[in-house]
């Protein structure tokens, strides 16, 4: 059931959202934005413009100072840390710029982790699904290795597998190619897009690259804490 303030049919919606880090000025100044089911949107902008912050708010990693964030129809405001975490782990997959794989777990175990945290699957089922997901990103033979034994591109592919394995409604990707060379970045980006399409999940991607952004359904620009349509000075339509 949709809650008040939530945009109908949206996987993610932000309404008049503002945010400031402790001791600093406002980073976001009243952002309105909605992401529909299956939609793939890119946010571009200068460093420090607030695009990653928007992603963190969408994931519930930070709480908005003002306004409403709804994730799959559920308002994040008023939820405590644990409730936000439960919501995130079931419905969101995150891909970070610097991979954030757990170095003490093997590649397969890293991919199994969201299943362990978010589902009631048996150990065997978890292993099976994780292995299939690794196969899907082309790393089926690397499951027993530790992340440090993989190249940067391979590590990011593992991160994509980990973000998708529990079939979330939304993938949040923060500069997923930022730590990779252009050729590897291209491959990883293509894989991310392909997997998102294959699973039908929504994708919100933050990037510096206008070229990559242009390959998504919609491109928004973050400038001085405000979200604008690419090439437009108007706020993006909800």
């Amino acid at each position, binding site marked *: 059931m949709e809650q008040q303030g939530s945009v109908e049919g949206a996987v993610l919606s932000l309404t008049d959202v503002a945010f400031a880090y402790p001791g600093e000025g406002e980073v976001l100044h009243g952002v309105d934005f909605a992401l529909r089911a299956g939609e793939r949107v890119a946010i571009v902008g200068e460093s420090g413009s607030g695009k990653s912050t928007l992603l*963190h708010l969408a*994931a519930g*990693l*930070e709480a908005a100072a003002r306004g409403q964030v709804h994730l799959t129809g559920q308002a994040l405001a008023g939820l405590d*840390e*644990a409730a936000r*975490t*439960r919501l*995130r*782990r*079931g419905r969101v997959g*995150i891909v*970070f710029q*610097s991979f*954030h*794989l*757990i*170095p*003490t*777990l093997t590649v397969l*175990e890293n991919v*199994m*982790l*969201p299943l*362990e*945290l*978010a589902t009631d699957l048996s*150990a065997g089922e978890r*292993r099976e699904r994780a292995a299939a997901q690794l196969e899907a990103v082309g790393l089926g033979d690397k499951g027993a290795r530790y992340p*440090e034994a993989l190249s940067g591109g391979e590590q990011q592919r593992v991160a994509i597998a*980990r973000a998708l394995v529990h079939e979330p409604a939304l993938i949040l990707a923060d500069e997923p190619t930022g730590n990779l060379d252009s050729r590897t970045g291209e491959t990883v980006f293509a894989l991310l897009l392909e997997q998102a399409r294959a699973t039908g999940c929504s994708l919100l991607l933050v990037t510096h690259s206008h070229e990559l952004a242009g390959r998504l359904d919609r491109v928004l620009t973050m400038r001085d804490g405000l979200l604008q349509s690419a090439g437009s000075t108007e706020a993006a339509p909800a």
Partner: protein
Amino acid sequence: MSLLVLRAWLRDWRRRPLQRLLTLVGVIIGVAVVLAVDLANQSAQRAFDRSMDEVAGAATHQVLGPASGFDEALYRELRMAGWRDTAPIVEGPARLPDGSTIYVLGVDPLAEGPFRGAASDIGDVPVQRLVTEPGTILPPVGWFRDSGRAHESRVTLEAAGGAREVTAIDRAAERDQADAATDEGGGSLWVTDIATAQGLLDRLGRLDRIDVRLTDAEVDVLAEALPAELELVPVESRGQAARELAQAFRTNLTAMSLLALLIAAFLIYNTQTFAVLRRREVIASLRLVGVGRRAIFGVVLLEALLVGVIGTLLGAVLGIALAQVLVAQVAQTVTDHFFAVAVTGVTPRPLALGAVFLLGVGLSLLAALAPAWEAARAAGAGTTGRGGLERRARRWAAWLAVLSMALLLAGGGLIVTGAGALVGGFVALFLLIAGLVLLLPWVLVWTLRGLAALVRGVTLPRIAVRSLERSLSRSAPATSALTLALAAAIGVAVMVGSFRGSVEQWLGQALTSDLYVVPAAPASARGGARLPEDWMADLVARSGAVSVSTGSSQEVVSERGLVDLYVVRPHANWLDYLPLLESTVAREALGERLATEDAVLVTEPFAAHHDVRPGDRLSLAVPGGQRPFEVLGIYRDYGNPSGTVLMTQAAFVRAGMPPDGVGSFGLRLPAGVDVEAVVERLEAWLAEQDRAALVTRPGDIEQESMAIFDRTFAITHLLRVITLVVAFIAILGALMALQMERAREFATLRSLGLLPGGVRSLVVLQGGVLGTFAALAAIPLGLGMGWLLIEVINREAFGWGMDLRLPWDEVVETVLLGIGAALLASAIPAWRMARMRLVPALREVP
């Protein structure tokens, strides 16, 4: 070195004060414990030496007789024979109303001139009063100040002669000048006139010794001239055994304090490594702008120097305060076992302070060397990261394991060969400790790998365990610190428990009578006090005793110096109860031979100190010269750490030794008799006698003995607690460091959906794993330390053997304490990690 570089480095103190505080605490506690034990030891040693010197004065030799003393007429005869440099002495311990033990020295001020300055100035008013006013006594000057008594006050002293009231005169007040400096305000020596001392110590008409000053040529002449029952002995031979034993006791304490310092070193190393790792960005940036390796190395060491200096200064202040507590305990132990000493204060010696300063600062620098080297190796950003360090740590763990084997072999070799005696024992102990501590990282790696394999498929425990293994440079030193502390606790528990159990068992065996009648005197004075032998018939008549034993101690001259001789007239089946360790004779034949031949038994400490074996002969001075006695066996005894020679009354009399009264009567009562009624009858009869005596039950003696025992080891318990506190701080620091370094991983887990409670569980699980490992590793190490303390160190130090008893309840308690401490230490980082803000942690450079 650039001031800006230094500033860039040291500003971290403001950012992370808790980490710096932990380093400081390590230095402070380590330094404080070492200094406190050293000061307490030195103060007790000075008090002991001062007391011995005051008692001996400037004499070169002493004329000694039986324990009950000898006729004072002998002194007059010596003087008349032309021996002018002589001074008669009556001496012994007494007890003050507050329970403290003092030493009464009865002198003849007229003869004291060449001997003791304090009691020789007959022109001095207070000394004159000793002669002219019976019942006056000169306490140490500091006593008036400490007790708050008036300058002249009546004091009741309890000694061999019973409780007597005397007038204590303040020497300084009488002289109208404060000369406390010469008396150092302390001491336990109370000087009085010989007549007063004779009354107090139950020596009417008798002397304990005569001090003499002799040239080398005169020694033999006087020895020849003395009556048969008197012996001439050099002054140095008296107190030597007590001096050596007190030294052994202090060595034990010093070793304990060094262990605390070693554990503190782990803490310092841990926090210094962490300080460097936390600032790897600063190091990388400094290197990038051209700061050289030497400057980086220097700045880390400079910081360590600063921490060392501040920590040592604060540790010195704490150490001096702690010494005030410890010194009373050390002095009490010396008084209980060796000689009555009183220490009124702790005077830090510049040399001790200097040594501790060097130790504290040196340790801080030493602990910072490896981190400084790591920092200097860094060429740019990321190179000082954990990955490289941890890989090196794992490599080092294997090499350290090889080194540990060498140390363990060396330690084992020392134990097997027994080389180096007591010092060798301690070296072996430290080699074994060092060997096992160096082995721990390697064992920890494989244990964690095994655990990780066990929890394969259970993701969170696997993360916890693997993360510990990957942070070996952090987890190994903390675990070592905790293991050491717990092992020391177990080792001391095994040693004290075994000792206590053996003493209790021995008391049960030694106290074979139902009641004892002993002179009314402090426990430490009873050995020399005597009761009339003809009381025996009256005691039997009033108690209905079926058997009466007697025993009395005295010092006799042997070819091995002055020895303690215990003369017994035992109960019929006494040998059934005697804890005989070795004998050349069957137990059944032993009683007969001891009664009919020139034969003795010796205690275990005596055999150890004098290297005597069954079958050896021991020459004792008897009237008419030296007489050899065959040592028939060695028995266990904890009564006298210097050792005792046991002789039957029959052999004693046959050897022509003069009858010497009775030190104690032991009464065996008929079965079913009302013991309390017997006690009442005996007490009523004793009250009518002119000698003060007490009726005591074996239980009372056991209680008093065990109280002395517990006082002796109270200080080791205190050190144990301090050691555990340091280890707790070490593991707290390590876990905090570990979690802070893993903050990014925790943030990732949280972003993937791990709840705050899950993070808390993970951190607590890590604490639990480290604590359990340390506790389990501490069991074999602790038991080994306990065994070494019992079989090597205490045997070498005191000559006491004891049965190894494993106090499992204390071992289990210590293990649980270790695990509990680690879990408690993990509570703070768990709470911090669960509450951390995720986004800043996610942004941290891996």
